[in-house]
Structures are given as structure tokens and as C-alpha cells.
């Protein structure tokens, strides 16, 4: 047997088929035509002198375009195809691979049957892909368990809030010694249970177990700038390795007070996740900047990069969603930004991202500042008055954070008995709130949903409505919107305080848009609840605020003297002069408004109300200002219908302000009379 013949037999045995390209789409088999070719492309082809392979195989038809390109080029080596599968006449799969080469000036196509090695190769791919799928599924399972754990803990902690309230109520009673001890045992054990729930959360939920937003005092609050600085130092080597400049914003004064709610390890984790994200997308040679800006009630931290910016279709919701991963350079599990979002929101903040005007992306988060005041005794620190902070978190504070049990009679009576309407669908919460408010000395009428609340308001006047946001039938927001619509005709303004477990910025926006005057977060503390309700108690029917954004979360009672002192920088002489001139001018301004209302002259109404609003604003006086603003808006809108009622409110509120200002004057006069010598000096 000739050497060539032996070689051809060997190649055929190894699954190779060799064809010489003759041009015009025709091929000639070199050597023996392997059996597998007969089963795949038909035995009759073996007898043909030439073959048109493109007609036998759609895949080869495609590949031969590349092959011809190679043969007609001066490239060396070979043009090879990927693996493809042909079905034989029995529908069995035959994996093949092809190469186009040039041998001794001839255009040669080599096709190899891979049946012997394909199974092994497929097994390798299969194993790798199965592992990837299992990894993905595992991550999903972990996440589901995390979420389930949060739900369980939330559900477990809910009844505890009611239990705590009941024990507090009972502890206020003068019970016999034995029963008092039983109450104390109940209080102690409910606190112990809270501690155990927290223990479960911390032990099992790992990174995603976001603790509740402990507002904390300034002394124990983390410093956002220090966190940013530590993370920048920690990430600096990784950025250097990638050729990216990482820096703290040079405008950031780290020596200032940057204390916020939350805890340092999680704040650093948030910065870290944002930096990891930035590092993934920022090109070599560019910079990433970490900075913080003071937004008065909150701080805004940001990570700016000089990368390609956000994808066109990337909304904030999607970017920060669970398992969301980038398209080009995805991270690990799609958890990093989700962690940032749920952590920040649990602390009462918000998070977002947008493109920078000059290119790159701007990731930011806002966190409320830490309180500077000492928390009220007995009050849940999370809902202290400066800003209601999140208390929708799954668990209550640990025992060490708990206020001491209340002593009997601790709460005292309210300065004024208020008529309060409570709309709350949960029986236990409704009963508890009713009991607490009645103990405080208020008169309470409780209903189960928004419809019933509106019905009650149509029959009776209330100073304050305490409105649960989520109720079946008509929820609190819808009920508030309806009440505000009805008030348009009357010009009155019912004080409505929302009760909510939702504390994100978006939730707050919804409350303001609906027309709520404030809100208290669940689980609420008695002291905070009383303070919020009673701070709004200057008569339930007030002049309507002209704009929804005048709603405040917790407005302290307005102290005219204090406000005036702040306005004048403590200059008592100036303050007295302002009071004097206001009291002298106000009757004329009121008279101008009255005339404009009577004449239904919108332009005059707008001018007169505007002038009076500006003068009254010096003294705080939100009700007076709101009524004047409302009249001004009516005038500007060219529709003074209903202005009479608002004007009546203005007169009532002005009378109240006048009384307070006259009292101030008397006090100042009395002080001056008591120290005439000192003045002479």
C-alpha cells in the first residue's frame, strides 16, 4: 500500500474528510470518502466526481463564504469553523468541525467528525453551566430566606409593640404591689423577647439584616465624613492598581460635624459598594470623587465617576433593584446597590443615581442628620421630634436602648382637652391609641377606615385627625385627599396627622401631596404621639395652607417670643419696635383685605394679603401666614370665591396672635419698669 494511501486511510479512520475546492462551488473528495459522510450527506455523493457541499449543508454554505475569503487571501494558517451538528438519515446527531487550508497551492477543506471527543467536551461545558445555574439558584434561595426572615421578624415584632403599649398603660395605674410586679415582669419579658428577635436578626441575616434606623444622639452617631475617609483609604490601593484616581472631594471639611443616623460599619459598606460599582465602570486614567454636602436636615453623600454614565434605560428603581446587574461589566450577585437602597431607606434616607452633565455618573444618598437633643424620656428614640425617623424596621430597640418602664402617672394630662378622630383599621392599635389619648385627657372618637373618618367629620368637629395610612376600603391618603377637596369650598383646614410605617422620601412626598399636616411613625411612642398631636392643636379648623409643601412632619408649638428673638438676633429693642409697628399697622392691612374680599377684587386681595403675610411672618404665626397666603393665592388665581371664610379664619388667628403680642409688650414694659436705673446707665 502506497504511503499516501495509508495516510488517507488513517485520516478517514480518525474521522477526517478532505475535499479539494475546484471553484464554482464544486469540491472533489480526496482519498476515500468516509462512511460518516455517506450517512450524513448520502451514499450517492460518494460516487459523484464532484460535490456541491454548500447544497448539502446549510452550515457549510455559510462557512464556505469565510473559507473562500481565506483561500483568496494571503493569510497563513487556516480558517476554522465552530462546532456544528448535522443530523444523519436516522436523525442521529453528528458533531463536525471544518478548516479551510492551502496545501501545495490547492484549496483544501477538511471536515472532521467529532463524535469520539464531543461527549467529553459537552460534559465539560455542561458541568460548568450547571454549576453557574446552581450558583444563581443558591443566591436566589439565600435572598428569599433573607426576605422571609425579615418578614418573620417584622411579624413577630408587631404584637410586641401593642404589648409594650399595654404594659405601659397598666404601669400607669395604681395597682396593688403584687399586680405591679406582674406588670413589671411582663415589661421585662417583652423587652427580653425583643432582644431575642434582634439576636436572630443579627445572627442569621448577615449583611442584609439592616438594623432599624436608630436615630441615636449626636454623641453616639457615626460621622459620615470619617466613614467616607476610611473607605477611600481602604479602596485606594485597588484603584491605584486599576489606574484610577480615587479622592475625597477637596471641598469637604472633615473637621466639621457630619454626624448622621445609622451605624458606621453599614455606612462604610454603602460607600464601599458605590466605589466598587464606580471602579467597575470607570476607565483607566480617570478619577472617582467621594464627597458630602450639607443639606440642612440631612447630608448628601456622593460618588462621582468619569465612566460612560448610566445606561439609557436605567431608572433608579432598576439600578437599585434586587439582583440587578449591569450589562457590560456586571458585578457579583446584584446585591450591592440593593443593600445600599434598603439600608439608606431604613434610616429614613433616600438613594439615587443620575448622569453628570460633563459625563460620568453621580451616585448619591441622603441620610438624616443625627439629633443634637437628648431624647425624650420614655420616647422611642427613632421617632424623636426633630424628624420622625424610620420605625418600620423589623425589630424594636434592644434592651439597652429601651426606656425605663413608666412610673404611674408619668404622662400627665394634656394642657388642653382635644377632640381627636382616630382612623385605624387594626383593632388592637385602635384600642391602644384610644386608651392612650383618653388617659392623656383627650376626647377620642375612633373609626376603622377612611370612609368612616369622612362620615365622622361631616357630623362633628375635631381638633385633630389621626389617620392610619394603610387601611382597607379607603386608605388614609385617599381619605385625606377627599377631605382636602371638600375643604376647597369651605376654606377650612382640618389638621390631619398620618400614622405610618413608611418613611422613605417618596412616602413623605405622597403624604405631602395628599395634604397631611404631619405624621407619626409606627411603632410610636406615647410622648412623641402626644407632642405631635398637641403641637397641632391650635384649633382643628384652620386656614388652609396654600401649598401642600407647607405640611411638616412634626411642627413644635410656635413660640412667638422665641421666633421673634431669632428673627432679631436677640435684639429686644428691635423686637419691641417690630411688635409695636405691627400692632399699629395690622388693623389697616386687615381692613384692606376685608374691603378687597367684599368687593371681590382679586388684584387688591392678592396685594393686601401679600403685604399682611409678610408682616405676620416675622412672628412665625403659621396659621395667620397660611390664611393670608391662601387669600393671596385666591387673588392671584382671579377667583376670590370662598374668600370670606378664609378671611374669617384670618381674623380669628390674627386675634390670637395679637393677644400674644400684647402680652409680650406688657412683659417688656414690666421689665423696663422694674429696672429703670439699669436702663439709665
Amino acid at each position, binding site marked *: 500500500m502506497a504511503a499516501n494511501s495509508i495516510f488517507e486511510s488513517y485520516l478517514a479512520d480518525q474521522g477526517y474528510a478532505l475535499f479539494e475546492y475546484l471553484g464554482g462551488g464544486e469540491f472533489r473528495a480526496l482519498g476515500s470518502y468516509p462512511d460518516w459522510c455517506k450517512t450524513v450527506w448520502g451514499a450517492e455523493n460518494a460516487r459523484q466526481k464532484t460535490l456541491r457541499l454548500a447544497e448539502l449543508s446549510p452550515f457549510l454554505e*455559510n462557512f464556505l463564504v469565510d473559507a473562500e475569503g481565506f483561500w483568496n487571501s494571503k493569510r497563513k494558517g487556516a480558517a476554522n469553523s465552530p*462546532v456544528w451538528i448535522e443530523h444523519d438519515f436516522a436523525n442521529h446527531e453528528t458533531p463536525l468541525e471544518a478548516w479551510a487550508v492551502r496545501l501545495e497551492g490547492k484549496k483544501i477543506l477538511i471536515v472532521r467528525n467529532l463524535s469520539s471527543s464531543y461527549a467529553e467536551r459537552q460534559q465539560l461545558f455542561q458541568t460548568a453551566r450547571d454549576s453557574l445555574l446552581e450558583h444563581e439558584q443558591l443566591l436566589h434561595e439565600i435572598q428569599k430566606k433573607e426576605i422571609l426572615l425579615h418578614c418573620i421578624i417584622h411579624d413577630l415584632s408587631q404584637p410586641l409593640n401593642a404589648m409594650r403599649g399595654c404594659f405601659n398603660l397598666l404601669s400607669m395605674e395604681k395597682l396593688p404591689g403584687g399586680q405591679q410586679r406582674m406588670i413589671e415582669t411582663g415589661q421585662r419579658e417583652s423587652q427580653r423577647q425583643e432582644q431575642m428577635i434582634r439576636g436572630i436578626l443579627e445572627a442569621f441575616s448577615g449583611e442584609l439584616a439592616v438594623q432599624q434606623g436608630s436615630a441615636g444622639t449626636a454623641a453616639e452617631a457615626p460621622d459620615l465624613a470619617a466613614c467616607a475617609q476610611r473607605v477611600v483609604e481602604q479602596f485606594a490601593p485597588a484603584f491605584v492598581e486599576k489606574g484610577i484616581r480615587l479622592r475625597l472631594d477637596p471641598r469637604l471639611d472633615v473637621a466639621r460635624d457630619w454626624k448622621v443616623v445609622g451605624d458606621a460599619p453599614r455606612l462604610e459598606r454603602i460607600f464601599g459598594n458605590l466605589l466598587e460599582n464606580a471602579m467597575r465602570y470607570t476607565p483607566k486614567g480617570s478619577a472617582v470623587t467621594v464627597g458630602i454636602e450639607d443639606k440642612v436636615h440631612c447630608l448628601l453623600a456622593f460618588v462621582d465617576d468619569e465612566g460612560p454614565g448610566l445606561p439609557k*434605560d436605567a431608572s433608579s428603581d432598576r439600578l437599585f433593584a434586587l439582583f440587578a446587574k449591569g450589562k457590560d461589566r*456586571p458585578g457579583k450577585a446584584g446585591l450591592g446597590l440593593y443593600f445600599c437602597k434598603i439600608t439608606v431607606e431604613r434610616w429614613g434616607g433616600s438613594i439615587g443615581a443620575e448622569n453628570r452633565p460633563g459625563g460620568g455618573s453621580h451616585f448619591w444618598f441622603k441620610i438624616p442628620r443625627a439629633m443634637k437633643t437628648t431624647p425624650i424620656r420614655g420616647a422611642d428614640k427613632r421617632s424623636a421630634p426633630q424628624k420622625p425617623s424610620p420605625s418600620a424596621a423589623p425589630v424594636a430597640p434592644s434592651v439597652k436602648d429601651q426606656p425605663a418602664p413608666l412610673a404611674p402617672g408619668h404622662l400627665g394630662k394634656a394642657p388642653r382637652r382635644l377632640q381627636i378622630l382616630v382612623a385605624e383599621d387594626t383593632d388592637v392599635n385602635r384600642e391602644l391609641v384610644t386608651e392612650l389619648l383618653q388617659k392623656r385627657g383627650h376626647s377620642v372618637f375612633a373609626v376603622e377606615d377612611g370612609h368612616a373618618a369622612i362620615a365622622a367629620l361631616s357630623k362633628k368637629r375635631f381638633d385633630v385627625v389621626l389617620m392610619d395610612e394603610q387601611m382597607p376600603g379607603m386608605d388614609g391618603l385617599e381619605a385625606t385627599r377627599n377631605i382636602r377637596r371638600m375643604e376647597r369650598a369651605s376654606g377650612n383646614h382640618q389638621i390631619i396627622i398620618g400614622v405610618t410605617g413608611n418613611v422613605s422620601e417618596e412616602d413623605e412626598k405622597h403624604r405631602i401631596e395628599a395634604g397631611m399636616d404631619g405624621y407619626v411613625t409606627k411603632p410610636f411612642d406615647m410622648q412623641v404621639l402626644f407632642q405631635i398631636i398637641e403641637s397641632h392643636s391650635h384649633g382643628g379648623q384652620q386656614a388652609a395652607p396654600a401649598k401642600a409643601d407647607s405640611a411638616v412632619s412634626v411642627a413644635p408649638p410656635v413660640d412667638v417670643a422665641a421666633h421673634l428673638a431669632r428673627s432679631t438676633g436677640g435684639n429686644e429693642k428691635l423686637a419691641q419696635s417690630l411688635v409695636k409697628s405691627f400692632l399699629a399697622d395690622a388693623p389697616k392691612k386687615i381692613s384692606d383685605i376685608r374691603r378687597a374680599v367684599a368687593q371681590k377684587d382679586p388684584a387688591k386681595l392678592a396685594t393686601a394679603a401679600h403685604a399682611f403675610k409678610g408682616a405676620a411672618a416675622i412672628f412665625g404665626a403659621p396659621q395667620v401666614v397660611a390664611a393670608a397666603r391662601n387669600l393671596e393665592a385666591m387673588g392671584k388665581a382671579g377667583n376670590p370665591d370662598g374668600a370670606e371664610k378664609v378671611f374669617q379664619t384670618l381674623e380669628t388667628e390674627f386675634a390670637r396672635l395679637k393677644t400674644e403680642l400684647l402680652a409680650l409688650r406688657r412683659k417688656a414694659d414690666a421689665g423696663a419698669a422694674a429696672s429703670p436705673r439699669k436702663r439709665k446707665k
Partner: protein
Amino acid sequence: MLQKKVCMLGSFSVGKTSLVRRFVESIFSEQYHTTIGVKVDKKVARAEGQDVTLVLWDIHGEDAFQKVQISYLRGMSGYLLVADGTRRQTLEDALALSTRITETMGKIPAVLVLNKCDLTAQWEIEPDREARLAADGWKAFRSSAKTGESVEQVFSQLTLAMLRK
């Protein structure tokens, strides 16, 4: 007879091969056999009163091990973009692949298939995402190679789109 090359495109394990098998042979297997390279099948479909031979190119799923070469797609008249509705990321990956195709080959008729719709408990594509897909001009179908739901429909929709182009 009119012949059209149709490519099955999408991530690995989204069910491209299962959709082809359901369409061509009316069978389904629970067993997952990953595809290496390309499998070519044919099936005659009827649309607008004429028979069309669909040459189905079942192309391996994209992942770290295998990338789809645009040269496979030469002569393609349309494609089914397949995502696994129980793995949200596969939809984003599929859309990214489609963008790549449009950038290099221009606009080509395509139908988006959100497969495995029988697995309702694990479904991860939110209704608003589907609404956004429609707003972006995608004709998207929920399908199941297992139950056969919408399988014929997706191929006939694509055939129609190719004929009308």
C-alpha cells in the same frame, strides 16, 4: 420554495433548543443538554398563503465560555431572541445581544420570547418590565417549550414579520 434563515439567540439554558424541538418535532425533554456550536434544523411553515422553509439555526447560548460570532448570522432573515423568564438577567443579556446585532447588521425582524412561563412561581419579569419592552417596540411572548404554550405562535409571528419586511 421560499427559504428563510432563522437564528435562535439568547443566554445558555434559556430553552432555545427545547423551543426548536417542540416546534420541529413536538417533543420536550426535562433533561438539560447544553448546546455546543450550532444545530441546524428545518421546518416548513405557512404564512400569508404560502409555504416557507424555515432553516433554524440553534446557536449555543452566550456565556463566559462561548460568544456568538456574528459570522454565524450571515444571511439571517430573522431571529428569535429567547430569555428565561425565571432568570431576569437573561432578558437583559438578550437585549444587549440584540443591540449588538442591530449595530452590526441593521434592523432585522425579531420576536422576543420569555420562555418557561409554566414556572409561574419563579417568574422574575415584572409586568411593568414587559410593558416597557412593548413600549420599546418589542413583540414579546410568554412561552413554554414544556407545555407548548405560544411556541407555534412565536414562529408564525416571526415568519410573518420576515415576509412583510
